[in-house]
């Protein structure tokens, strides 16, 4: 129990960092209405670029900007594969993700690389949990603020319309290809930023660190929606809900591990949790459809 309580702030900090990635997933999965699998690659790209930039002497802010830029480029790649080469979205993401494994190895020069907090000034690291937690919160808040502004602009509206109704968007003069590419660029930029933060937190970058990132991102999005969806209607609050979803995910994982769950089965657990949460709306609907209601119940509903 004490061990769990001690682990809580760290889990929260990590949840917020992954929550930033989940916001990237939210942009593609919820706003653009596509599943972008580039994420698993771009997360590690962000981490790799940050570690290599810093160890070669660049400043922290510049390294973060470069990580964001590199992530954006991975999004551009997927976007162009889809819009210019006509490759279905899911496949385009998988192709980029696979290719990125080599690219990330190329950036790092080896499978993993350490970044010691003793030699470098870092934003977050696991030795300094409380300041990391505060910095993550500020970081997430700034990102939510910027996205709130962006999706209120004319361009942001065009992106939302594209995700909502392609025919309507085109009929109103929106270049839906451009909209899709812009959305994936922003999404993967954020994912890479999350990877860059995570690399600082754990003090290393690893080519395999993004594996399953999309699932964790989806978990955070769905948990956030299920728990806060009824209360958080405003767009900024919904993004905050996604971050909280990430926090809840990490806290739950920490609890499970503290209860003695074998860490080797963690990914299986994540996949199962996401599968169940994705299935719930479907079950609910088919259950409601197959069940014949009592007449009284229908009348009561009608009276409401």
């Amino acid at each position: 129990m004490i061990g769990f309580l001690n682990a809580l702030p760290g889990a929260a900090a990590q949840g917020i960092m992954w929550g930033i990635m989940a916001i990237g997933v939210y942009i593609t999965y919820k706003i653009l209405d596509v599943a972008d699998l580039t994420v698993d690659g771009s997360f590690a790209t962000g981490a790799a670029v940050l570690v290599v930039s810093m160890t070669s002497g660049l400043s922290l802010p510049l390294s973060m900007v470069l990580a964001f830029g590199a992530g954006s480029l991975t999004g551009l790649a997927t976007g162009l594969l889809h819009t210019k080469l006509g490759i279905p979205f899911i496949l385009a993401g998988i192709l980029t993700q696979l290719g990125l494994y080599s690219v990330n190895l190329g950036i790092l020069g080896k499978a993993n690389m350490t970044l010691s907090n003793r030699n470098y000034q870092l934003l977050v690291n696991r030795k300094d949990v409380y300041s990391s937690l505060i910095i993550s919160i500020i970081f997430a808040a700034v990102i939510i603020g910027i996205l709130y502004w962006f999706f209120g602009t004319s361009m942001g509206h065009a992106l939302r319309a594209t995700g909502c109704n392609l025919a309507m968007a085109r009929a109103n003069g929106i270049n839906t290809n451009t909209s899709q590419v812009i959305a994936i660029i922003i999404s993967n930029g954020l994912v890479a930023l999350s990877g860059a933060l995570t690399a600082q937190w754990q003090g290393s970058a690893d080519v395999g660190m993004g594996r399953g990132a999309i699932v964790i991102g989806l978990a955070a999005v769905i948990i956030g929606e299920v728990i806060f969806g009824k209360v958080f209607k405003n767009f900024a609050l919904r993004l905050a809900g996604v971050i909280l979803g990430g926090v809840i995910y990490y806290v739950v994982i920490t609890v499970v591990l503290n209860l003695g769950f074998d860490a080797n089965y963690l990914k299986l657990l994540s996949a199962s949790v996401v599968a169940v949460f994705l299935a719930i709306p479907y079950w609910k609907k088919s259950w409601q459809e197959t069940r014949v209601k009592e007449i009284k119940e229908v009348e009561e509903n009608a009276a409401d």
Partner: protein
Amino acid sequence: MLQIKNVYKTFNPGTINEKKALRNLNLTLEDGDFVTVIGGNGAGKSTMLNMIAGVFPPDAGKILIDDIDVTRLPEHKRAAYLGRVFQDPMMGTAADMWIEENMALAAGRGEKRGLHWAIKNKQREEFKELLKELDLGLENRLSTKVGLLSGGQRQALTLLMATMKRPKLLLLDEHTAALDPKTAAKVLELSEKLIREEGLTALMITHNMKDAIHYGNRLIMMNEGQIILDIKGEEKKKLTVEDLLRAFTRLSGNEFVNDRALLAK
């Protein structure tokens, strides 16, 4: 205004599903023309409208809007000249976005989508005024998700959005077909009012021959990808449904077959 010159379109060429949708289609609209379009199943009515809108390019021929050749212009660029209302009431609006957000999207048609606020306060007042005209109580529901509106309300909103930027040409593709008769009549009246007040040029496909005769100043009948009848002005005012059916049999050598038209009679 609009010129369609020798347009051909075949779907799935060389396959068993080959469909010659348009065969040497020619049509010229004058400014302010309100043309109703009727025809049997598969006559090419919707294909013609989609071709004008740029949903797909023609195999051959030219399409000009105000002497601008738009034949190879992508759909989203042509949108600057056009207002469109679809048969499916769900298709013309973004369900997850608010009424005012949808209207702001339409207000930005033909303009650059930059990093400025999508909705200005001044616009909100204009939107309210426009919605008041619909008389559906929507003017007080600017921040309601469009997905919560009924089919008729959505179609009325789509109509408003299609006309608010005063398009050079308004394309109505059986836009009342999916509505109940009462709502359909209301939306049709509204269409007529907007077209008249704004002096718009419009092409309206309908399955209802009475509506085709009652509305507009010109009527065209299509069959097998061509226009087989084109009636204007005084002559159109005197038309009856029987005239049209007889004309169809005479010109095409077939009975008029349109599932909905037969049911609607």
